């Protein structure tokens, strides 16, 4: 994931960061994966709102977990008012 660190002659001025953290996939921190039961989901958007990692996305139709960044904190599962999200160990989860 990380490329060779740059030498000083090619780094931007004033120590300005030149990459977005989007390139740093925190998804590999996960021990538990949230699984959404779409039969139960009422699209209240609470999980989307409360995800500290912006790892839940709304596409206009459904919420979905962005596994690139989800750290598996389980806040979404805990807060879901209809208990539509289950936290499943990564080792057991498919894909």
């Amino acid at each position, binding site marked *: 994931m990380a490329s060779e*660190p740059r030498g*000083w002659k090619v780094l931007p001025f004033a120590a300005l960061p030149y990459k977005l953290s989007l390139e740093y996939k925190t998804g590999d921190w996960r021990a538990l994966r949230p699984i959404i039961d779409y039969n139960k989901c009422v699209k209240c958007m609470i999980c989307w709102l409360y995800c500290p990692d912006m790892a839940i996305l709304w596409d206009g139709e459904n919420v979905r977990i962005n596994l690139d960044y989800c750290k598996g904190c389980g806040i979404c599962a805990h807060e879901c008012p209809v208990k539509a999200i289950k936290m499943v160990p990564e080792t057991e989860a498919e894909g």
Partner: protein
Amino acid sequence: MAEAKSIPRIPLEKQTLIAVNGDEAVAYAVKQSLVDVVAAYPITPQTIIVEKFSEFVANGEVHTEFVPVESEHSAMSACVGAAAAGARAFTASAANGLALMWEILYIAASLRLPIVFAVVNRALSAPINIHCDHSDAYGMRDSGWIQLFVENSQEAYDTTIQAFKIGEDPKVQLPVAVNLDGFFLSHTLENIRMLPDEVVHEFLGGYRKPVKTFVDYLGKEVDVVLDPANPLSFGPLDLYDYYFEHKMHQIEAMKNVPEVVRRVNEEWYELTGRKYGDGVLDTYAVEDADVVMTVIGSTAGTVRHVAKKLRNKGYKVGMIRIRMFRPFPFNEIRDLLKDVKVVGVMDRGISFGSYGPSFMEINTALYDLSERPMLVNYVYGLGGRDAPPKDIEKAYMELLETAKTGVVKERLKFLGVRE
């Protein structure tokens, strides 16, 4: 490379003659320099700069936002914020006020913000002393700032304006400290010549313009500024994999400074008829001197006066006033002093447990010569102790004696202290 435009000389009649003290001279320079933000906290002997400037603000004579901060640490912090937002920023302080903003000095330099800072040199506590010495400026010599020292109030006015141009040069982008001696210059009345406003505006190219850099995630070159059109993050966390490289940027930028200081000095000469040596060093009678005294600040006037007197008596003496202390002009010092027999280095401050900072720099400058001058460090003037002509003359005579005997009896001497 842009063709240097020839700068038309402003005739003396158009340069208004006013009687001001050094602090006021700085305030007038700031007034004319299209400064956006002045954030300052009072400390003797800088107070008059900010008081005078406050009058300009209260009378609507400047567009500057004056931020009367609650400490010097906040003064420099506010300047950092302002400069990062694209503003031309200025502050002033001295002694313990400067010491309080110490950590932010490093940040200002490493974020490459061309803030201008008038340091009205004063001794550091304890005991508390409000008078002139250079320990405050010496204390910031490692911080990455450009340090210029002036000899008189005219130079204080001239150099403050020049400082904005030097710091904002695209090859430099570093903050600049303009040092003037507390009380000797700050509170002493002198006649100075001031330029018309528009001339200063033109000299500085108008308001501050940001530089550009390429940032990958924006996919283009952008202005280095806090700008909602192109979001940038200033002041990240560096781990051990990048900090060193970022420091190299500052080290490289320092290498570009002497040329810019010299060029701006030349441009100022074309504009006003005034120049200060070559901008970096100001010399008197060094070419064939046996003995040379180096000095920083207003005492240079006394040293030059004594040197002239001794020359008239037939002694081959000279002096160098160091105007640019950081970056230190090693090569020029070496070239000027290589054939001199003895160099007396005056320091109005000392690094406890070692020598005066100028002495250590000059020592380093001369080290590689196969035949080097002898060096004596004269620490003088601490806490505002006067350095009258007779003390300087005594020092010169000691140095001449040393030149004759070829032996340095004492390397570190103290001028004007009671045993």
